[in-house]
């Protein structure tokens, strides 16, 4: 019985092919747009997520306060208010997973005939944990290397490529600002940071070594930056408060005086970037949904015309025993077939368009099963929703009025 109805609907659609195709086109464009936009949006979200993950999660950055001399204020970190013992004290706070004091800089690095200017980061083994940065080969330096100021280094992929080419860097000796360093291990690639820097173009050495042998510092034991990782994201505000209280106490900052350090929540920055891409992809989806809606209205329009045109046919069917639900089903099926078929074609076009976008512009696209499923179910719903009113109108016709209709 249902099958027979399907055949009827198919026949009715075939009777006016051009009109059926044009009606379907509304759905095709709507679904195609939704799938394409969702693929691009999800691709963008994924790229952002990748950069966030490469940065490390649940991170705070503590910067030393600034100095001012003769009215000219220098940047944060120029004063020597943070110390390595501050970082050790922070590590004792509840909710803190790892703490890494950082002395960043850049230096000319030489290996054999090659030389290369690269970022040199002085830190502790905790730095790798905080950044969730793993080793590709060799070993990391240890806490005792930091204590004794050993001249050892870990090298990033880009720096390794520029200095060593195809050679294995582990165990080799390089010179950083004239001082010899032994490479203990190589780091796995991490890609671009959120601001577009190549994070792999860097060398990591113990912070004590960096301060004594590479950059030098007037105030040993002070540090410009401390990276703090919490155990979970939701406790970050609590940890932030206790960290500020601890540092104010340690630095003997009186009430009413400004902090002599500044604190940034890197995760919050990253989250807002992720949030804005999420909103962008939602917006794209919303705009595409409007075309789906327009497609649905097109279906309703044509179904209304079709019901009027076939009033006499409806009358005949009622005269030979069609019930309301039979007529309803007949027209509803027609609307559903048009929208589902249109949806299917739209899906193919949307996926094709997404792949083409990826090929032509290198934009990251993700075609997920869920977005396909969403588009499909929305289309079917649109078909039922916009097909229902015309079908209901047909089913409620008076048999004798319908039969008399010319």
């Amino acid at each position, binding site marked *: *019985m249902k*099958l*027979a*109805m399907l055949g*009827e609907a198919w*026949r*009715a659609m075939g*009777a006016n092919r051009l009109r059926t195709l044009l009606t379907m086109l509304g759905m095709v464009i709507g679904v195609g747009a939704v799938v394409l936009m969702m693929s691009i949006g999800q691709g963008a979200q994924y790229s952002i997520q990748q950069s966030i993950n490469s940065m490390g999660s649940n991170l705070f950055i503590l910067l030393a306060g600034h100095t001012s001399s003769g009215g000219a204020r220098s940047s944060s970190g120029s004063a020597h208010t943070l110390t390595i013992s501050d970082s050790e004290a922070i590590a004792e706070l509840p909710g803190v997973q790892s703490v890494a004091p950082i002395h960043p800089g850049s230096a000319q690095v030489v290996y054999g005939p090659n030389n290369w200017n690269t970022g040199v980061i002085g830190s502790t083994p905790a730095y790798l944990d905080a950044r969730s940065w793993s080793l590709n080969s060799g070993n990391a330096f240890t806490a005792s290397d930091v204590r004794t100021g050993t001249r050892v280094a870990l090298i990033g992929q880009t720096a390794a490529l520029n200095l060593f080419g195809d050679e294995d860097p582990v165990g080799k000796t390089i010179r950083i600002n004239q001082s010899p360093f032994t490479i203990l291990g190589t780091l796995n690639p991490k890609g671009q940071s959120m601001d577009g820097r190549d994070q792999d173009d860097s060398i990591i050495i113990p912070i004590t070594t960096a301060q004594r042998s590479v950059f030098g510092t007037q105030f040993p034991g002070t540090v410009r930056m401390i990276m703090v990782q919490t155990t979970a994201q939701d406790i970050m505000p609590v940890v932030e408060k206790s960290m500020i209280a601890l540092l104010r106490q340690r630095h003997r900052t009186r009430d009413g005086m400004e902090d002599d350090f500044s604190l940034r929540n890197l995760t919050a920055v990253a989250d807002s970037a992720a949030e804005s891409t999420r909103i962008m992809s939602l917006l794209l989806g919303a705009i595409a949904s409007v075309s789906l809606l327009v497609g649905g209205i097109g279906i309703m329009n044509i179904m209304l015309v079709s019901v009027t045109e076939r009033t*006499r*046919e409806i009358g*005949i*069917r*009622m*005269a*030979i*025993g*069609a*019930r*309301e*639900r*039979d007529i309803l089903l007949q027209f509803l099926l027609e609307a559903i077939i048009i929208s589902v078929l249109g949806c299917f074609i739209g899906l193919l076009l949307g996926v094709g368009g997404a792949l083409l976008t990826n090929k032509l512009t290198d934009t990251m696209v993700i075609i997920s099963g869920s977005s396909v499923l969403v588009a499909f179910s929305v289309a079917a719903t649109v078909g039922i929703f916009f097909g229902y009113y015309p079908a209901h109108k047909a089913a409620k016709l008076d*048999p*004798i009025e319908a*039969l008399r209709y010319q």
Partner: protein
Amino acid sequence: MSLPVIHIENLFKSYQTSAGLFPALKNVNLSIAANEFVAIMGPSGSGKSTFMNILGCLDKPTSGNYTLNGRAIAELSRDELALLRNLTIGFVFQGFNLLPRMSLLDNVALPLIYCGVEKAERQQRAREMLAKVNLEDKAESLPNQISGGQQQRIAIARALINRPRLLLADEPTGNLDSRTGDEIMKLFDALNREGLTIVLVTHEDDIAQHAARQVHFHDGRIISDQPTPHLEAAS
């Protein structure tokens, strides 16, 4: 005598027109027994077609009682009326009313879809009906590929496929020439002999001659109800 197939008491029907309420049927009383062959006659505008549509459960009376096969029509829902039209009544129209895009076989089988008969059985029964009206070779043709007389035979096959008790025909020969009209009437005669109750609307005397009883309408009232005077032997 057994219960009448059709029993009508004090039936009124009026239409709302721009000129006010127009009474199409005024106090009609009629009883038709099983296996009768009744011709409803009268000039145009006399209310005979309105009466026919009420008999066929396509239209509802304004007031009065209509009992079909022992069931009071006024109490039935739209779906129950649809079921009556599907199973108990066969309706044949002046304009044939076949669905133009369907093969003749599908046209004949269409009523069976609405009472849930499976496809194989639908096709088999439709073929049997086509054979009964001598059009089995036209099963896959479309309605516009055959003559008017053939179309009316298809319409009759469609009306009869659910083995109804009652066949209603509203000027079934009105669009046909007299020779094909005569063929249709012979088919009706044969069906009546098989036990089918037939009610036929016509304004032609020689068509009405096929019926055993003639009911004349004038101005919305029955003015005469009598056996056909000179019943010709159906050949």
